């Protein structure tokens, strides 16, 4: 049996009295396109931050390709690419500079990193003047594409993306989707959180749903349908709402008195 690409064992994070992630046990196999869903404040970003070494867990284990990221951080970080929620870009660099910088930090040789940066800029439509403008002057979509390019430049075997499609237009979304699809075809593991269920449904091979810090559902979409005892017609949105415990009938009853 192959080593899981991502594995968490009782991963927990508390902030004062609030438990943001509670005893999370999750396994993602190599090559999977894993969608991580949950309502706002469910613990998605907290989980991703713990998995990539940006937030120390209160307890539990997080492994990347079998390497405990909190025990051997550098070895684990060599395997991953990260596009965090806040993007975390050096705003006074240009996209080209930032991508080259990131590639060098991952140990990609200089000539190669230049070539890859140019290709990524072209692919993500950041070519020309845009590539040499400071990131601080970028639109949200351009920043996302820059962050994605920086996360991809070293060809990671595991890619973490926190809300990659949030706040970007259809053209940029398409470009990002195509790149992710290509990466997946190459055998990389992709772990991404998103609110846009339609994209998750189209791209992901398996999904996990987190609510109140706990994993409430996990599996392929047909498996979730089966568990939820829903028919073929059930969309991911139906399954998601069911998993997080939102009563759809009840929701329609909650109406605004002054709008009726």
């Amino acid at each position, binding site marked *: 049996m192959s080593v899981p690409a991502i594995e968490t064992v009782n991963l927990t994070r508390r902030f004062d009295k609030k438990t943001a992630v509670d005893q999370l046990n999750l396994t993602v196999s190599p090559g999977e396109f894993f969608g991580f869903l949950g309502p706002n404040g469910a613990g998605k970003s907290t989980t991703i931050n713990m998995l*990539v*070494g*940006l*937030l*120390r867990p209160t307890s539990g284990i997080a492994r990347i390709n079998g390497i405990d990221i909190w025990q051997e*951080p*550098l*070895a684990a*970080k*060599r395997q*991953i690419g*990260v596009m*965090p929620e*806040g*993007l*975390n*870009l*050096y*705003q*006074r*660099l*240009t996209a*080209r*500079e930032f991508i*080259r*910088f*990131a590639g*060098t*930090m*991952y*140990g990609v*040789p*200089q000539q190669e990193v230049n070539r890859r940066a140019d290709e990524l800029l072209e692919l993500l439509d950041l070519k020309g*003047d845009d*590539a*040499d*403008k*400071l990131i*601080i*002057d970028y639109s949200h979509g351009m*920043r996302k594409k820059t*962050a994605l390019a*920086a996360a991809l430049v070293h060809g990671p075997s595991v890619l973490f993306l926190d809300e990659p499609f949030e706040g970007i237009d259809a053209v940029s979304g398409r470009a990002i989707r195509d790149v992710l699809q290509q990466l997946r075809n190459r055998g990389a593991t992709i772990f991404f959180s998103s609110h846009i269920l339609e994209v998750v449904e189209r791209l992901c091979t398996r999904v996990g749903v987190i609510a109140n810090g706990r994993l409430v559902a996990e599996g392929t979409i047909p498996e979730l349908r089966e568990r939820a005892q829903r028919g073929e017609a059930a969309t991911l949105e139906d399954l998601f709402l069911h998993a997080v415990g939102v009563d759809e009938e009840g929701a329609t009853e909650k109406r605004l008195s002054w709008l009726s």
Partner: protein
Amino acid sequence: MGFDRRRLKALFYLRGRLTLRQFSGEQGRIVNVLVAVLFILPLVLGAAVATGIGYFQLPDRWPGELLGVVLTVIWLIWLVFPIIFSSLNEGLDVTRLLVYPLPRRELIAAILLGTLFDYPTYLMLPLFVAILVGWGGGLALPVVLLALALSYIHAVLIGQFVITAVGGVLQSRRFRDVAIVVASLLGVSCYFIQMGSMRLLENVVASLSPEQASAFSPLAALQWLPTGAAARAIERAASGYWGESLFWLGYSTLWAAAITWGWQRLLIRLTTGEGFLFSLPPRPEKQKMKAASGVNWPRLFAWLPDDIVQLAYKELRSLWRTPNRRVGVLQMFIMPLIMGGAFIFSGEEVATELPAWIGIGLPVYALFNFWALTQNMLGWEGSGLSALLTTPVPRQRIFLAKGLALTAAICLPYLAVCVLVLFLAPNWQSVMGALTGLIMGVAGMAVTAVFSVRFPMLIVVENKQMGKRAGGGCQASLASLLLLPPIFGLVALPPFLPLALAFWLNLPWLGWVGLIVGGVYAGVVFWFGAQYAGRLLLQREAEVIATLRQPRDE
């Protein structure tokens, strides 16, 4: 033409809340305001007392001239103040209110009322009180009160007019970048500017003939400005010329009406989507960053590992491109100018009077620069820090690269000063002092590297306001204040001892030997400091990131 009082009240409260909430979560800003008030208040009180005495004691027409100058200066300050501090309070930004169906008169009334929350408003009061005391006696009191009210309205009106007219420029990143640098450098150069202005004034006054001096009347020109007219009205009323006084009051009121009308027109432009009157045009393509496309100067450093070169290169670029950091670099150039300026304006014969041992003092300048520029190294990474720490780059290399880049940046102004000192005092003490300073600074960086991991302090790198917003725990603040300077000095001290001994005993060879040993010492200390800081960072990465997380204001 009534006002919706509830709406006006809501706008007034909004402004009040925003004013108060700029301090919540950032208690450091309260300290900034207190420091500013403590600094400025004595100045304003002093000016009020001095002008108050002037109104009573100056002979002939000079109290009136003084009054004209005071009211015009206040008006000019309010004209410039919003340009520099427009981002102090979100409430100043009219554009945020434009989505609501607010009549323009309410918008104007709310904005004017909102100025009551600008603390600089209250800094005018002592000067107004002095005017009231100096001129308000007798029958002129109603005119004085009216003229002061007009002057207040003029002050706040011109501020809002300017914001509305040039809001497009104020909101641009390019303006902000330049303004941060200019405002900070102006602050640093205050002494320099003050001395220069005094000299200039002395020269102008000395060059006036008695006839010219007696004909000199600033108010004759200032009376045509809005608040100058108010001053003339007061002066005329005090002399019993009521008709003239009323004329000048009317003239000033006309100004107020004209500015209000102009401001309203500008607001109409904004509300109808025509935008600000002035905004910066897009930067021409050729001026945009040429950046890395053709430039490959890191090749010069091919003997270094790629990641160190890239990190150092990034550090240098960020040092220049980030306005708050650029201020630090420019200050290194300005510091010796200020110190030199103190000599120059003191009237001493500088060039010929410099002692031969002046070079021994160079390490002090070097140490100050190293201390100022290298502390809180990680704090300056801004939002990029998380990106950097998700990479597997060996952590000690981050500090080695930063040390390399920062030393290079410091070398530029430092070597310029050294050359100047060598020109003025060409001797072995100057050469050794210059080199010892650099060596000491490099050794000291070991301490700042470790402190930046152990006691990181948040700096909002892309702060949209003038000056720096900084935060951090009490422990980190105390450590940087009480622990860092002595340890930094202590670690940097050993290379200085042979230089001091060599100077004391007049044994140049001892200095040269000390220089070599000191160089090795500094290299070793910095190397081990970087290694230790790297190891420490690896253990504390999550904590450092949590402390240095940037607010989402992009």
